[in-house]
């Protein structure tokens, strides 16, 4: 896709706030080898003494992307972000912004602005002064600063609070001021370090959509660091899942969920059932997996390079499993079991089903009708079934 095609394509529509986790069709600059990435990490390594925080990371992030670095605390995601902002220097490797090496630039000379986890609002300045701080550093004339500050405050519905000090604001307002300050300079890249971590769940969801709206309107590249997988799924165009200073998988939210490349990703994003087994036969694109003596073999789509006798794990999302009281007649995979736990959540119900070998399996069922003839309950003998296409065979 060429530059012109990108700008004319309705990226805005495809990335509306109501978009689900399904991959969007129009916006995928990472598939275009002719594009220069906005940010490039090139074999970046960061050590703190003996501790290796980031191990040889290479990553391209493109213009207008909303990119998420996702992982548990201590996985190196914040260090990566701080190296991009200039607060940490890579032990080795390079960082490029729009093709230009910025590895040696001081933080105050970089075209990136950051929204801090603790917000780091200047307590002795008003909201206006906080937002205008970066513009003042660039020597922008006062009237232009005032105008830009006003625009930014209007965009984030902060106009009423311009004269207040940070401690006179609620948590949600402080968060918006921090965001306003980071975007006021119209930087090429905005970095967000756990930006919504301090908000309660309800406020967080609203703030996520607000973030997406702002990112879309400004057309800026956003890079967010988060440990919250739901947040990453909601806001981002692509996610890099990190563990122990390495990227485990870099893909769109949809691919990460539907096609995880490892048990780590499958486990980290959403709920999953894992069955350990051995490939015994590959035929017609399908693999047969033996997962225990006396147990019916699984049938699943064989991944590339899948060979016989390979140890694999079958990953199965709970909502992909159909739970029924009667034995299915023509299913590729069917397992008998006993319900040991039921969780009724209104819209859906969770079932924990114990199989003959003692393993427990989670299954979901949408409560689509108000009355069910006979709801599935504790101690019920049930059958679990799923088509061969829904299970994912993982080699690691």
């Amino acid at each position, binding site marked *: 896709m060429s530059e012109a095609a990108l700008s004319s394509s309705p990226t805005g529509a495809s990335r509306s706030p109501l978009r689900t986790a399904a991959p969007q069709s129009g916006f995928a600059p990472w598939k275009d080898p002719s594009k220069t990435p906005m940010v490039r990490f090139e074999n970046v390594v960061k050590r703190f003494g003996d501790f290796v925080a980031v191990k040889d990371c290479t990553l391209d992030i493109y213009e207008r992307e909303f990119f998420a670095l996702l992982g548990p605390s201590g996985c190196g995601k914040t260090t990566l972000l701080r190296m991009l*902002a*200039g*607060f940490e220097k890579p032990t080795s490797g390079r960082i490029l912004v729009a093709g230009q090496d910025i590895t040696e630039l*001081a*933080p*105050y*000379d*970089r075209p*990136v*602005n*950051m929204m*801090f*986890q*603790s917000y*780091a*609002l*200047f*307590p*002795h300045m008003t909201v206006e002064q906080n937002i205008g*701080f*970066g513009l003042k*550093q*660039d020597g922008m004339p006062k009237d232009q600063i005032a105008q830009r500050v006003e625009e930014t405050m209007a965009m984030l519905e902060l106009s009423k609070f311009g004269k207040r000090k940070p401690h006179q604001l609620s948590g949600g307002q402080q968060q918006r001021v921090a965001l306003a*300050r980071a975007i006021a*300079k119209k930087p090429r890249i905005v970095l967000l370090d756990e930006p919504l971590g301090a908000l309660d769940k309800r406020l967080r969801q609203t703030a996520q959509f607000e973030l997406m709206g702002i990112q879309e309107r400004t057309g800026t590249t956003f890079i967010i660091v988060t440990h919250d997988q739901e947040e990453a799924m909601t806001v981002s165009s692509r996610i890099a899942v990190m563990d122990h200073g390495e990227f485990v998988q870099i893909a769109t939210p949809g691919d990460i969920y539907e096609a995880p490349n490892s048990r780590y990703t499958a486990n980290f994003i959403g709920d999953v059932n894992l069955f350990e087994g051995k490939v015994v036969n590959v035929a017609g694109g399908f693999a047969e997996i033996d997962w225990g003596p006396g147990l019916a073999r699984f049938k699943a789509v064989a991944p590339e390079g899948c060979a016989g006798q390979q140890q694999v794990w079958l990953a199965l999302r709970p909502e992909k499993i159909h739970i029924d009281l009667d034995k299915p007649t023509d299913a590729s995979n069917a397992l008998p079991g006993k319900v040991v736990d039921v969780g009724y959540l209104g819209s859906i119900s969770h079932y924990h089903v114990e199989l003959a070998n003692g393993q427990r399996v989670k299954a979901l069922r949408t409560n689509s009708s108000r009355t069910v003839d006979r709801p599935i309950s504790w101690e019920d003998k049930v059958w679990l079934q799923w088509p061969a296409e829904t299970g994912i065979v993982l080699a690691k």
Partner: protein
Amino acid sequence: MRRWLLISVPYLWLLVFFLIPFFIVFKISLSDIATAIPPYTPVFDFSMGIGEFISKLDFENYRFIFNDSLYVNSYFSALKIAGISTVLTLLVAYPIAYGMARAPKEWQPTLVMLVILPFWTSFLIRVYAWIGILKKEGLLNLFLMNLGVISEPLTIMNTPLAVYIGIIYSYLPFMILPLYASLEKINPALLEAAADLGSPPWKSFWQVTFPLSLPGVLAGCFLVFIPATGEFVIPDLLGGSDTLMIGKTLWGEFFGNRDWPVASAVAVVLLLVLVIPIVMFQSNQEKEREAAR
């Protein structure tokens, strides 16, 4: 009931031994000197009526103080010396406090301890230590002459310079500690945020660090300026006869001339001079405490 008992014990103690004495000082400043023991006309003579009591009061001692250049000069000189040494102390203390606040966390308690430690040793002894260093044949001159920096010994002892050095030295911990406390509280992320928004380190200092350390600067300046204004030991031991300071004048008036009423009047005027900075200091402290909650 128990609450009132709890309140009244320290309250009464301070009223009797701290507040009431000031009224007595004021009363005596209005009476006449007498060659007796105690060397002034009685304060409480309950035999006379209120009218007579009031008619006996006069402001003669105050007229005397304000007409005698010795006292007026002592006040101004004390304020000047205290003011200049407060600024100098701030300049000396700031880099130290800054360095401490930026030091590795595990070092900080030790550094604070090392600042406090000299404060525990006697004030008098610490001032005394400087005599041996500053006097004409003292260690500083000896050192500098051996180095060949100077050929003639410097005259520092018994000059205002010696008093400045003495005040800076003695009051340094009082400046460092509040400065350190407010510098240490500054979230390092604020400086990162400033840098991130385009401010180089020296600009960040003036835009972020210094304004946020102002409560500490104020507290430290008050803690140095107020007691330094009434300082006696330092000008007496290091300043020589040429350095006028009101604390020294008061001491001389009391112990030398044994003129208690004039000494009292001097004290009352000194207190009036200091009342504004004292009240400012206290409201600054109250504000800090409110903010801390």
